[in-house]
């Protein structure tokens, strides 16, 4: 406002009200970010939420409202029961094991004086490699006849190993397992590859967490009579890693929910023998993209978002309540 504006209209007067002007500027400055957020993040979710109550297919001009029919299918059809079984098997296996292995590897590497970087790089390699390429390598290794896994196992046939390991004895007699083609093993093989690929990432997060543990705390623990490594771990390391652990578990479980590429690489159609590796992401892809059943695809997506949201809320609650020592 310049000094020549002597007569002010009511509008100008209200604009001159500093609090109001500030508020308007604030909205103006946040508007672009807000618009983008609504456009890219919230709108698709909202649209998916709406579509999950319809039978819409891409290319159709209209759609019918079907109410909760899509959700009803999800909860009653056996295909989707298989989907939930596969998803939770994967999440509940891969998350704890990859977190545990990550922590173990981080503790071991942290106790080294030399060759730290070498080990770090080795364990981190699978994280950096694309899972598609690695899946091909695994497919090759797990090949029923020429794969290195079964060939190694076959070497144990007829030796003392066979007598100690009934499982091996059984397969020596009946032939080595079809790892990827067997309904019983398929999901576990997928889990194994997920763990192999993911724990290096957790290890790196834990290594970062370990650098923040105060060295004098270990000395205090020693003086206080914590003799064994386990006691020092319980008294100092594990509590100090609390915030890291919450983060690592959250990230790992969300990543596990999102597993798709291993299954797509191993089983481009059908998601494993008898749909035994039919995880949610694969279902979304199959229904929503391949079969153009947008309605049911959206319903699965909403369920998926619900799970992820739940994990995130638990994480927030834990961080605020339990592991924040501030």
């Amino acid at each position: 406002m310049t000094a020549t504006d002597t007569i002010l209209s009511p509008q100008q007067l209200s604009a001159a009200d500093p609090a109001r002007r500030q508020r308007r500027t604030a909205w103006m400055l946040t508007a672009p970010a807000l618009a983008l957020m609504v456009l890219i993040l919230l709108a698709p979710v909202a649209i998916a939420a709406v579509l999950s109550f319809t039978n819409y297919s891409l290319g159709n001009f209209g759609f019918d409202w079907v109410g909760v029919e899509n959700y009803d299918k999800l909860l009653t059809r056996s295909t989707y029961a298989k989907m939930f079984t596969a998803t939770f098997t994967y999440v509940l296996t891969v998350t704890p094991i990859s977190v545990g292995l990550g922590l173990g590897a981080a503790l071991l590497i942290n106790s080294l004086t030399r060759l730290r970087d070498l080990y770090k790089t080795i364990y981190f390699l699978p994280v950096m490699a694309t899972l598609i390429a690695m899946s091909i390598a695994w497919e090759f290794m797990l090949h029923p006849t020429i794969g290195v896994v079964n060939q190694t196992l076959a070497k144990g046939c007829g030796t003392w190993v066979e007598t100690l390991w009934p499982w091996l004895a059984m397969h020596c007699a009946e032939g080595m397992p079809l790892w990827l083609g067997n309904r019983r093993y398929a999901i576990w093989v997928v889990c194994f590859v997920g763990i192999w690929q993911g724990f290096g990432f957790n290890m790196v997060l834990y290594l970062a967490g370990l650098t923040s543990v105060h060295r004098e705390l270990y000395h205090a623990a020693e003086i206080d009579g914590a003799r064994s490594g386990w006691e020092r771990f319980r008294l100092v390391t594990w509590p100090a890693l609390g915030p890291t652990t919450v983060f690592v578990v959250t990230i790992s479980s969300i990543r596990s929910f999102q597993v798709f590429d291993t299954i797509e690489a191993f089983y481009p159609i059908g998601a494993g023998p008898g749909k035994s590796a039919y995880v949610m992401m694969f279902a979304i892809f199959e229904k929503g993209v391949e079969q153009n059943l947008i309605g049911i695809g959206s319903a699965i997506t909403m369920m998926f978002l619900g799970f992820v949201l739940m994990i995130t809320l638990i994480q927030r609650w834990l961080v605020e309540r339990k592991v924040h020592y501030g």
Partner: protein
Amino acid sequence: MAGLILRQIAKTFGETRVLRGISLDIADGEFVSLVGPSGCGKSTLLRIIAGLEAQSSGEVLIGGEDVTGVRASDRNLSMVFQSYALYPHLTVGENIAVPLRMRQLTAAQRLPVIGSLMPGARARGREIAGAVSEAARTLDIDGLLERKPGQLSGGQRQRVALGRALVREPAAFLLDEPLSNLDAKLRVHTRAEIAELHRQLRATFVYVTHDQVEAMTMSDRIAVMMGGEILQCAAPGVVYDDPEDLRVAEFIGSPKINLLPADVGDGGRLSVMGHPLDLAVPSGARGVRIGLRPEALVVADAGAPLVGRVVHFENLGSDLFAQVAVPGLEDRVVLRASPRMRSSLRLDATVALSFDPAAALVFDGAGKRLRDLRRPAANRHREAVL
């Protein structure tokens, strides 16, 4: 409770010699401070006593027993760390209880939930709770037992760290600069509290500090360390009035001791700034310097050995320190005067300073104290006798 004996402790880190043969006898119940400038090896020595660091050579005896090779948790010592090192996830009460739980409960009794169901765990737990609340009462932190360390002030944390140290009865207490994180006022307060605690417990204390005031006010004896050696270990008064070494004289005392170069004349007679003194050293001494505490200097009439201009004042209320620039001396001479002298000690005023030769501390060129002082053989310069 037990005494500590250090015999020729040496420590090298790679190429660096950090400790060069430290020997020290600490009696049962004694309060000994280790003072010295930063990096002189105080913490290293304390950590060697505690067993957190292994000495390169020499031995540590606790209560007459050689503890070389005994691990820290078996030495029965308590230590307060510079950073306090409280367990952030435990409450104050749990923090103080840790040393007792670790020592008095079995591994099974310490298990999270089922531990308290183990036989004997309840009774032990009650004993521990009793000891914790007693330690907390001693330190006046019984109102804080439920808080986490993160919710405490620096002074409160420091007391919790002390509480964790004194909840059991160790052979000795080792304290590594426990007051360095406190503000000046709290430091003075806690200083007195620790000294009182020592009187009350009659326990052996080894106290590391680089603050000479702390050392002077709390200890039975002060060990002045420099460059990995103990230069002198004696009662605070002795270290101040009767230092063995120039470096000790310079380190102890604030403001610093005044050092004047002295010439050695015939018969070893010393003179300062051309003024002969009533003091003689054994002949052959070179590079002699005279140390004078600020309170040893008095304002005198003209003709005194030191004449200079007042360039700076520090009025502390009870004391007045004047810095006097004396032509021919590199460093300013610091004089302590009573505030009554304020009018005569104006800025830029010219003052003459003299001193009692008996109060002068004489050091040879290597910094060693010269104790073999005599009156000058010939008393030719009567007019200069002070």
